[in-house]
Each structure stands twice: as structure tokens, then as C-alpha cells.
């Protein structure tokens, strides 16, 4: 069945709420407004205001509702209207959600999911276009998930809700309308498992979330030139399924990591460094990282497009790693 990412996420929420009474949704305009991006459409009607809760614009206490209720046995799904506003809740996420279990010597678990749409491409300007996965991935105690297709979105969100640890679930505003095949009936995709999205032998393209789509398009471009790119999606950034990535890189000897966030201390450099460490002798050329240009995101459409990765840029990076002598 072909459905959009939005519908896939909506199904995941509905199914998990039906399955487990402890699951509830909380956030700004998630109930009567159906969510700013309509991901929670219809859930208020089905589950009532006791399980789909509109909040004031108060990110810190919204996060607190997630952490606190999780501590006493609930399974809250917190929606930050966008990832950008999570900057106002960093303390609850990093100093609380990520720490309560460890600091208490394992007495508590914190099964909260923080859903956050993000990314650039809609000309929303510098404050509304963040990809903050590097910040969350930096933090022990958090798990970080970043699906790039409707199928992964649904299967991973269901797993995230059932997971006993705090999960940062990163969506992308440009993917909500993306359609893709989703299995009939219930299925789960475990956290921490990468997937080869397209097989190839010449170069490995590692990409997640919206950049998966860019990488797949780049692979099409490259195929026309006779280059067979393998596309691997880590899907979960923490824990990272390094093994699957390394396996591909060992095969191809060359890698490009694509991500939408900034480069410095970003996920791209992180994955590249891990690959160098694990597959140094198999690498025929330095790894290329394709990321956002190091600027606050500009409003102007053309500038914005210039600031983020594109299939062409990914293909160019692939050609560059291939052109280097082995």
C-alpha cells in the first residue's frame, strides 16, 4: 500500500495508542488543530482529550510532562511543533530525560518519545530550518532515530514508542507528503538497524532522513554514467549500526556521507571518523561529507537550495572519491 509519511506516522501513533493505554500525545496544537503538520489528524476524535493534549506554548514544561509521566509508567509521545523549539527544552532533554536512569543507578526508566519535524527547504529562514541531530546524537542516554521513508517512519515510530529509553524521533517537513510502500498490518523496525536501500559496488552513499532521497536520486544520476552506488541508510543515529556501514565500505572502498545539518561536529564527520577507524585499510580514498554550508539558513529560495545538499552535489562528491587514485 502506498501512503505518505504523514499517514504512516499517523498510523503508527493510532496503532500504538490502541495497543497500549499508557501511550498519549502531548504538544502544541496537536489535538484540535490535528498538529501543525497534521500528523496527529483524527486522534483527538478517536482517543479524546485525555490522551491527545493541547498545551500552551511552553516547551520546557511540555518536555517535563513527557519525562515526568514516563518516570511513573506512561509512554508519552511529545511533539515539538518543530525541532527548532526543542532548543527551549534542552535542559529537560539532556539534563533530565537522558540522565534519570543513570543517576538513579538504574531505578528508573524514561520511555518518552520526542517527535520533532525539522530540516530546510521550505524557505522558513534561519530560526526554522534546523537539523539538530548532531546535538542529540552527542548525548549518552538518548536514542536518536531519523527515518527517510514512510515504511521506516512507521516501523521505527512504533518501536520508539515501545522502547524503554528516551528517543528523539526526527522527522522532516519535506517528507510528510512523500509516498512510499508500507506493509499491510502491524510491523516493527528495530532501532539501531541500518538498511541497504540500493545495492552497488563502486561507492557507498550513506544518508538518512530526507538525504536518503537525495542519495537515491544521486545513485540514479550516477547509474547513467555507469557508476553503481550502494545507498545505506543508518536510520538510527544513536545507537549507530556501524557494522552494516562498514560492511558496505569494505566492499566499495569509497564512501560519501550525506546529511542536512552542518559539518563541524556534525553526524557526517562523526560517521566518517568511525568508518576511518573501522575500515582504514579498506578505504581507497578519503571519505567525502556532503552537508549544509556553514551558514544560518537564508530565506531566499535560491540561496537556501545552494546551502543544502542536492542529488547533484552528492553525485559530484561520489565522482570525486572515485577519481582519487587508490
Amino acid at each position, binding site marked *: 500500500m502506498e501512503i505518505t509519511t504523514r499517514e504512516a506516522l499517523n498510523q503508527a501513533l493510532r496503532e500504538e495508542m490502541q495497543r497500549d493505554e499508557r501511550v*498519549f500525545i*502531548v504538544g*502544541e*496544537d496537536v*489535538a*484540535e*488543530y490535528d498538529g*501543525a503538520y497534521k500528523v496527529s489528524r483524527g486522534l483527538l476524535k478517536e482517543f479524546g*482529550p*485525555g*490522551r*491527545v*493534549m*493541547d*498545551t*500552551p*506554548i*511552553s*516547551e*520546557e514544561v511540555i518536555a517535563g510532562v513527557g519525562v515526568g509521566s514516563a518516570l511513573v509508567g506512561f509512554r508519552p509521545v511529545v511533539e515539538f511543533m518543530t525541532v*527548532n*523549539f526543542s532548543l*527551549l527544552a534542552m535542559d529537560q532533554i539532556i539534563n533530565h530525560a537522558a540522565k534519570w536512569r543513570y543517576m538513579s543507578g538504574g531505578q528508573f526508566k524514561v520511555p518518552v518519545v520526542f517527535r520533532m519535524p525539522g530540516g530546510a527547504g*521550505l*524557505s*522558513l*529562514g*534561519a*530560526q*526554522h530550518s534546523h537539523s539538530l541531530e548532531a546535538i542529540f546524537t552527542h548525548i549518552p542516554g538518548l536514542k536518536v532515530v531519523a527515518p527517510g521513508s514512510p515504511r521506516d517512519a512507521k516501523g521505527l515510530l512504533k518501536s520508539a514508542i515501545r522502547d524503554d529509553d528516551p528517543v528523539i524521533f526526527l522527522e522532516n517537513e519535506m517528507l510528510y507528503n512523500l509516498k512510499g510502500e508500507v506493509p499491510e498490518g502491524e510491523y516493527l523496525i528495530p532501532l539501531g538497524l541500518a538498511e541497504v536501500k540500493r545495492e552497488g559496488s563502486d561507492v557507498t552513499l550513506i544518508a538518512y532522513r530526507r538525504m536518503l532521497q537525495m542519495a537515491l536520486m544521486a545513485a540514479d544520476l550516477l547509474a547513467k554514467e555507469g557508476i553503481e552506488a550502494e545507498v545505506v541508510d543508518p536510520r538510527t543515529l544513536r545507537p549507530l549500526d556501524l557494522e552494516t556501514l562498514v560492511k558496505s565500505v569494505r566492499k566499495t572502498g569509497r564512501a560519501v556521507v550525506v546529511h542536512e545539518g552542518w559539518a*563541524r561536529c556534525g553526524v557526517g564527520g562523526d560517521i566518517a571518523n568511525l568508518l576511518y577507524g573501522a575500515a582504514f585499510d579498506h578505504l581507497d580514498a578519503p571519505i567525502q561529507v556532503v552537508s549544509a*554550508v*556553514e*551558514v*544560518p539558513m*537564508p*530565506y*531566499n*529560495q*535560491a*540561496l537556501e537550495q*545552494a*546551502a543544502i545538499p542536492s542529488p547533484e552535489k552528492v553525485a559530484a562528491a561520489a565522482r570525486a572519491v572515485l577519481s582519487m587514485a587508490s
Partner: protein
Amino acid sequence: MAGVTKQKKATARPKGGAAKSTKNEIPLPAKELRKLLRKMQLLRAFEEATRAKYLEGKVYGFCHLYLGQEATAVGSISILRPDDYVISSYRDHGHCLSVGTDSGRIMAELFGRETGVSKGRGGSMHLFDAERNFLGGDAIVAGQIPLAVGVSVALKQLGKGQVILCFFGDGALNEGGFHESMNLASLWKLPIIFICENNIYGMGTSIERASAVTQATRRADAYDMATDRIDGMDVLAVRMATEKALRRAREENLPTFLEMICYRFVGHSMMDPAKYRTRDEIEEWVRRDPIEQLKARMTGWSLLTKADWEAMVKDVEREVAEAVAFAETSPEPQIATLEDWVYSDPGKGV
């Protein structure tokens, strides 16, 4: 579960009397009144043009129109000194026009052009005009409030009687930064005027569903701050209240919290069909259109003829048409300049 109080119909007029201007005496010279009227009409026409250009795809991104709220920005900003400061939220077109920024450069910004006030980098939500002390355009709800407090710390130090007007919506009342800012401004006695444009909704959530008290001024009581509650559809009431608050700030270095009760005639942004409001409610507010109100009063005072008004409308139409033409013929930023303006001095290195 716990949460969620039931959606109540948002009261068209929140409880508690809101100050109105007196209807009978002529409070300002005719010239001033005409200025206010023309400015409000400019804001109105500018936003109508913005809407049209958005639907054509020439304005893009998130775009929050100021239709219906003209009195608050125009009335308060009209009596500032040129060296005072203004800061606003993402709903900032009206404030930027009110400080006197050229409408062409604002429209060019919405078009993302190099000639825009923010060189096409900011867009609708991030208008800036350093020359006129307009500090933004902040798209983080309540984000401008702590920053504005910082400005007022500096202004107090400069000792020249300068003041900052900090505009925000009713939704911002529930952010932590609002609270910290109110406390500090009162504790340190800072020359700042907090202007809450209470349009009764933050996106789809009415103030009754977001705030434990719906009278915003009660929040300010918790910091011993002077307050005033004003009919935000009455530009003269807005102006008078701001004038009093400015005096308090300039002469006594004391902050004021002004609640201006108003209404946006359209959805939250261009993407919002605003189904959460009833037709009745909208109509009730449209009947209180701030432009119509001032027009009626000026007509009553024999300060405005039909011909005056028609000429004014024409003049505004011409200005807005010129603004759009300027935007449409302005160049796009060059891609090579993408990395300009990140730092004053980027230094070497990566």
C-alpha cells in the same frame, strides 16, 4: 487523561474593562490623525498585496499577516522618538512599516531580493532596519523578550531616556523567557514597554485553553509592574496608553506591561484556514475594524471628507503598487554571497 480543558468559545472581549479613548474631544491635531489613518491603511493595503503575491508564489515561506491589528503597531510606534527601539515577533510587517521603513524594501524582503531590508536573508519573519532601530522579526515565540530586556539594560546605561517597545502575542505569555524577563525588568527598573497584542489565539489555541488567567495584565501584577489594558482596535487609546508608559520609562526608568486586545482578521499564517473560529466571532471583530473606527471618528469631527479618504486610499495604493514593482524588479541575491554576514570577522580556519 489529565490535560486539556474543554475548548470554550474564545470571548470576543476578554473580561475586565479595556481602556478606550474618549469619543468626543479631538485628542490630536488633524495632521497627526491623518497620519495615523494613512499608516493603518498602508499596513492594510500592504498586507492585501502580500497575500496576493503569496498566492502567486512570489512571497513564500511562512507568512503571518497583520490584517486587523493595525491599530496596535501604528498607535504605539507613532509617538516614539527616532532613537527609541522596537522589536517584534514573526508577525512583523506592521511594526516595520510603522517605524517608517520603506515599503518597497519590506516587500523586496518578502520576495527574497537583495534589495530587501534584510538582503533577502531574513524573509517575512525576519525584517530588520538598523537605521530605524528596528531589531526584528523574531520567529521564536517570546524569543524577542529576553533580548529586548538586554537592549533596555543598555538604554538605561546610556541615560538618554531611550525606550524599547517589545511586541509579542498572547501565546508568548506562557513561555519561560517571558517570566524571567518580566521579573528582571521590574527588579532592575528598566525602560521597556512590554506590549502583548492579545488577539485571543496562538495558532489554533485560544487564550482560555492556554493560560490559567486570561487577563494578561494579571501576569504583570506578579512582578509589581505597572499595567494597562487597552482596546487594541482603538488606535487613539493605544497611543494614549503608550504615551503614559513612555513617560514612566523615560522619567522613572520603570517598565510597563500593556495588554492590547485585538484580533487577526485572517488565519495564523497563509497556511491556516482558521477553522477554530466561528464566523460570528470574526464578524463581531470585523465590525470593530480599527481603520473604520478612526475614519468614523474623524468624519464625526469633520476632519475627513469622503474625498480625503478616497485620495488617501489612492495614495496608499500607489505606494503599495510601487513597493511591489520595486520588489518584482529587484535582483535576487548572488549565490556567491551565500556565506556573507555569518561573522563580522570570520578569521582564517574552518
